[in-house]
């Protein structure tokens, strides 16, 4: 049983059921319709035309898996940031982690071409983009925590201001890089800035999985420490946790997951705030449930949003980042208003 009274098994079963539903929708809906029975038949390897097989296995399946991975990564990052900064409104996008990662990615996209010929084969441009996005995200969180942590307390106002400065810096640097980018790079950047799962290939899925799956597996190991951190840094220390090490690990995992998600899917915001918020409402705030739950529920939400983005204005595709912002920004305001009503405010 979770302390909220929801059996853990049932919560996971519900999430797994939802994952299956959105997976069927993601694989079946589109210009080439594939019903659930035909998808099942495809598993046994028959009943599909060559073109349908191509659509299913080379377009929709990698897109589904990339969506599950990126959504999970963003949600886990959000849950970790919220635990670290002890605030349910800390979202990697809002406090500047994603902008930092985005800056790294843009640098890699624009300048990567110049250095690519000298790089070993394994460091292709997409891999370089992930690496730079990770470095950018890590620098951003490291800077934020320097600003935010004062004598064991979290100074939310300073952190938000630093986040704004980071976002401005990213915007300016991106603008600067746009002036030196060539046409192909401009298309890459533009497409990437809006956030999309459309570029999913198995190669990209592989790169995402290599970073995100370990993060998802390691994050729950921090859960007990994150629970203790909810009582404050001093209390967590008194309860036996190495607070500085805990914070460093949370920052590292967040930077890795956010970096990979941003590098491969672009600017998809608010997943990191919606998913942990909904999970806390349903399951309570215990991070032993929230962290694994976010890995699954984040993917479900992002894939569901992607299905909506593909079908609402078909054949046109709404950039998914726009859709998540349309849902996420009101959720953010809702949480903020409720905290204000409870006398809590942003801090």
């Amino acid at each position: 049983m979770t302390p909220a009274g929801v059996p853990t098994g049932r919560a996971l079963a519900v999430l797994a059921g939802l994952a299956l539903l959105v997976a069927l929708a993601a694989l079946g809906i589109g210009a080439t319709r594939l019903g659930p029975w035909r998808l099942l038949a495809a598993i046994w390897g028959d009943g599909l035309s060559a073109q349908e097989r191509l659509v299913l296995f080379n377009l929709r399946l990698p897109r589904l898996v990339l969506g599950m991975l990126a959504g999970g990564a963003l949600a886990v990052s959000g849950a970790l940031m919220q635990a670290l900064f002890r605030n349910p409104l800390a979202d990697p996008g809002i406090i500047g982690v994603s902008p930092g990662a985005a800056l790294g990615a843009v640098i890699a996209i624009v300048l990567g071409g110049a250095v690519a010929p000298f790089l070993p084969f394994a460091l292709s441009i997409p891999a370089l983009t992930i690496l730079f996005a990770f470095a950018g995200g890590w620098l951003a969180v490291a800077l934020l925590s320097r600003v935010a942590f004062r004598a064991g307390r979290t100074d939310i106002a300073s952190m938000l201001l630093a986040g704004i400065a980071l976002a401005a810096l990213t915007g300016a640097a991106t603008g600067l890089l746009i002036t030196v980018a060539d046409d192909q790079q401009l298309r890459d950047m533009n497409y990437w800035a809006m956030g999309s799962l459309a570029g999913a290939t198995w190669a990209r899925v592989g790169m995402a999985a290599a970073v995100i799956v370990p993060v998802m597996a390691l994050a729950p190991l921090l859960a007990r420490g994150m629970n203790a951190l909810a009582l404050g840094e001093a209390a967590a220390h008194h309860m036996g946790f190495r607070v500085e090490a805990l914070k460093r690990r949370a920052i590292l995992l967040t930077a890795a997951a956010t970096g990979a998600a941003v590098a491969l899917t672009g600017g998809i915001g608010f997943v990191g705030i919606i998913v942990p918020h909904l999970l806390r409402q349903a399951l309570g705030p215990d991070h032993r449930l929230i962290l694994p739950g976010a890995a699954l529920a984040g993917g479900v939400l992002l894939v569901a949003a992607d299905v909506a983005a593909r079908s609402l204005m078909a054949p046109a595709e709404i950039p998914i980042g726009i859709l998540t912002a349309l849902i996420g920004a009101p959720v953010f305001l809702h949480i903020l208003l409720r905290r204000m009503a409870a006398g809590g405010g942003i801090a």
Partner: protein
Amino acid sequence: MIRLDGVSLHRGSRCILCGLSLDIRAGEVTVILGPNGSGKSTLLAALAGTMPYRGAVRLNGHDVSRCGPARMAEERAVLPQHSELAFPFRVAEVVALGARGGLAGDPAALAARVEALLARLGLEGFGPRNAASLSGGEAQRMHLARVLLQAETGSGAPPWLFLDEPVNGLDLAHQLAVMDEARAFARQGGGVLAVLHDLNLAVRAADRLLVLHEGGLCADGPPGRVLNDALLETVFGCEALMNRIPLDRPFLLVQAQANITRQ
């Protein structure tokens, strides 16, 4: 046993406690008294392993400066003046956060232990409530239950309870309830070290008083011997009546016309 040997604490470059050497025994309640700024909480933090110091502190034989947080958490639990809560945990969850060792991995036994502790502290049936909805007194008792659980399940022999101004903001009944719980803990062989402001409460709760003043220990002993009019005037800088009737323990009566002259 806590053994301090030549312990000095600094705030910036200023020495606020210089060369303190003493033993603090388990099985009794030791209360640290002193005016604001005399280093009471700083001393407690140093002994708890969260404040650097010079000299040597041994807690149950362990060198505090070489102990990691996990080792320290086995030996002592700390109840702070105020506790925060970033997320809406339930009361039972907050208390359960204190559990160590085998109990932490046994949900059924842990739930029963938490329920029993809550009942002992007058919070029966509070387990499923949102901890953020508690009053100040209820929240402090919830956190007391948490640190008692940590002390009980830690491997410290004896376990220690550090209380840093644990009754601030509590009404009289809850002040007494918290300190009575501390006395019960000491009666069972645990060590209790508390920082208090209220002299009368200190007299009621303490077996031994340590009075800090001007960088050192200016009085040490049972309340009946330590507290007197001269100490009040020199340490706290105030004239007040110290009464001993009807008990042999002193009690302080600050009358309306008492002439208070802060130094």
